[in-house]
């Protein structure tokens, strides 16, 4: 084959490839449509409370409320993007069947913003655990953004016959928060 013909052929192929190159329709503005709603699961609180032997009989026992700082949502980059929150609570006790744990979210002025009670009315696993799940949406989430502390109170209801002693209330809770990223 004539070398000059080959050169022309190579040139034609190259230029045709470049000239006839096309591109599917792209829309880079779609970047502005980016959104994500990650669901972050994290511990909220836990404690183990020994039931004093002195409450082996009436009258009822109520622990002194314990105040704990609540600031895991303090960062505005989290709190401003809060879309949904599901709080999960679980209380385990071997012997004490009648009790309640009260969780109170409070603001700086010590005002109660939200009170959650875990008691016999909640889900019972049929053995020794009570659990409760509460979901908050939209404006109901405000208390989580405003709360700066949580009070925890454990109460043992009066028992007759007397409750068996030497027990421990095991409390644990977690939160799944959904964030809006754009």
């Amino acid at each position, binding site marked *: 084959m004539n070398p000059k013909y080959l*050169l022309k052929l*190579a040139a034609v192929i190259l230029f045709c490839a470049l000239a006839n*190159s096309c591109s599917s329709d*792209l829309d880079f503005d779609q970047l502005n449509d980016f959104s*994500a709603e990650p669901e972050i699961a994290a511990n909220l609180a836990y404690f183990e409370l020994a039931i004093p032997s002195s409450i082996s009989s009436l009258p009822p026992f109520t622990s002194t409320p314990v105040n*704990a700082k609540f*600031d895991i949502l303090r960062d505005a980059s989290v709190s401003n993007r809060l879309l949904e929150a599901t709080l999960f609570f679980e209380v385990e006790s071997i012997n004490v069947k009648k009790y309640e744990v009260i969780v109170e979210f409070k603001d700086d002025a010590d005002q109660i913003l939200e009170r959650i009670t875990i008691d016999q009315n909640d889900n019972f696993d049929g053995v020794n655990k009570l659990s409760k799940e509460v979901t908050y949406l939209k404006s109901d989430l405000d208390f989580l953004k405003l709360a700066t502390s949580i009070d925890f109170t454990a109460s043992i209801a009066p028992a007759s016959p007397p409750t068996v002693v030497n027990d421990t209330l095991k409390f644990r809770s977690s939160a*799944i928060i*959904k964030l809006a990223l754009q």
Partner: protein
Amino acid sequence: MRKSYAIILLFCCLSAASQNKQLLYNFTAIPQSAMVNPGVDLKHNSYVGIPLLSGVSANFGSTAFSAYDLFANDGTSFNDKLRNTLDRVSSNDRVLINEQVEILSAAFKIGRWDQKNYLSFGVYQEFDFVSFVPKDPAILALYGNSNYIGKRFDLSHLNAQAELLTVFHLGFRKEVSDKLTLGARGKIYSSIAHARTTRNSGYILTEEGTGPNVYDQTIASNVTLNTSAAAKYFEDDYDGNTTNDIIKKALFGGNLGLGLDLGATYYPKKNIQVTASLLDIGFINHSKEVKNYTYKGFYQYNGINPNFTGPSTSGSTYDEFKRAVVYDSTTTKYNTLRPIKFNASYQYSYHGKNDESCNCSPDSDNYRNAIGAQLFFQTLPKSPTAALTGFYQHTVSSGFQYKATYTIDAYSYTNLGLGIAGNVGKVHAYLLADNLLELRDIAKANAFSLQFGFNILLKERTTFY
């Protein structure tokens, strides 16, 4: 506005560029092939490049996705496309971009008329970007951890580097004998802006609780972002002149470094040629306008633990975390190594202008056709990349040559390339493009490179007078 300008500039560079120049390598009709092998046996040894147009190259490669996968205007939501893409990529997938523009380039014969010694020099601007897919951090950001209990989100997936720099070079090439040509090039790098986050480790792990908590949650972080002369352009209060700033840094005002290119061409037989080159053996010392950001520490998050038996207080979880995983910024200088490139080729030439009885010099000029193979390696922050190329080269006349290539690499198994070079009078031009099959729809291309340039060829003195 200035921030926008900096971002636009960055994207101009991004849209313009892997550094395998398989078409240019050992394409001896193109003077710029000396840039990928300082010891190349060139056809045109003395030349002056037309400023800014003598060597323009843009090279882009992505091992896992194309622009179409993310930005197709096909009615599918961007978020769905992003998630689908993330589902099928791995943390070893990467995006590589390289762009080079020769600002000045020239080579001259030096020494005695009967010696083949050449001096070359020039300046070029280069942009390099490489990023591995940060798969685990991206999953965490898009989906969170609640559906990934037990998954260890690996922070070493954060692995990226970008640099804009100017390179000043001075090279010397010598035809040691009819069989051997050697070359070396010294380089001074002037880094205009640099950012890297390549030496990260750590993880974020949420497991079902084995203790008193619902979850066992651990954050172990050893994440560092090094920047030099880059952070300020993105600060809200930056009020400098970006253009002047970049020009100043381009002209030895940036962070400086030194480098070396080495190359050789050897003819074991008249029609057999072996070449090799090692490029960018060098470093840059980043000491000016350095800002390093670190997130380092270990934290086990237990949540709030009210104390019923002791003082009625509980510490700040937020502060506890910040004390454990410390965010810090420093101005400590650092060094970076340039990505080293290794090229090698084996070429068999045939259908010579002269037959076997010819007592002519054993260079490829005597042959019209050549076939061969090339090998390419490049160091990357995580693992090196490699490419294997088969090529056919044809010399039409002393002025015109073309080269066709087929390359296998991490980006494509169907990479066909074609390049032509020729001169009309003293004006020399070349055009090289690969991944021609993917050019049918460039939006769907995983890799693409284009190189072109114009030079003025100079006459060499080959006689005593």
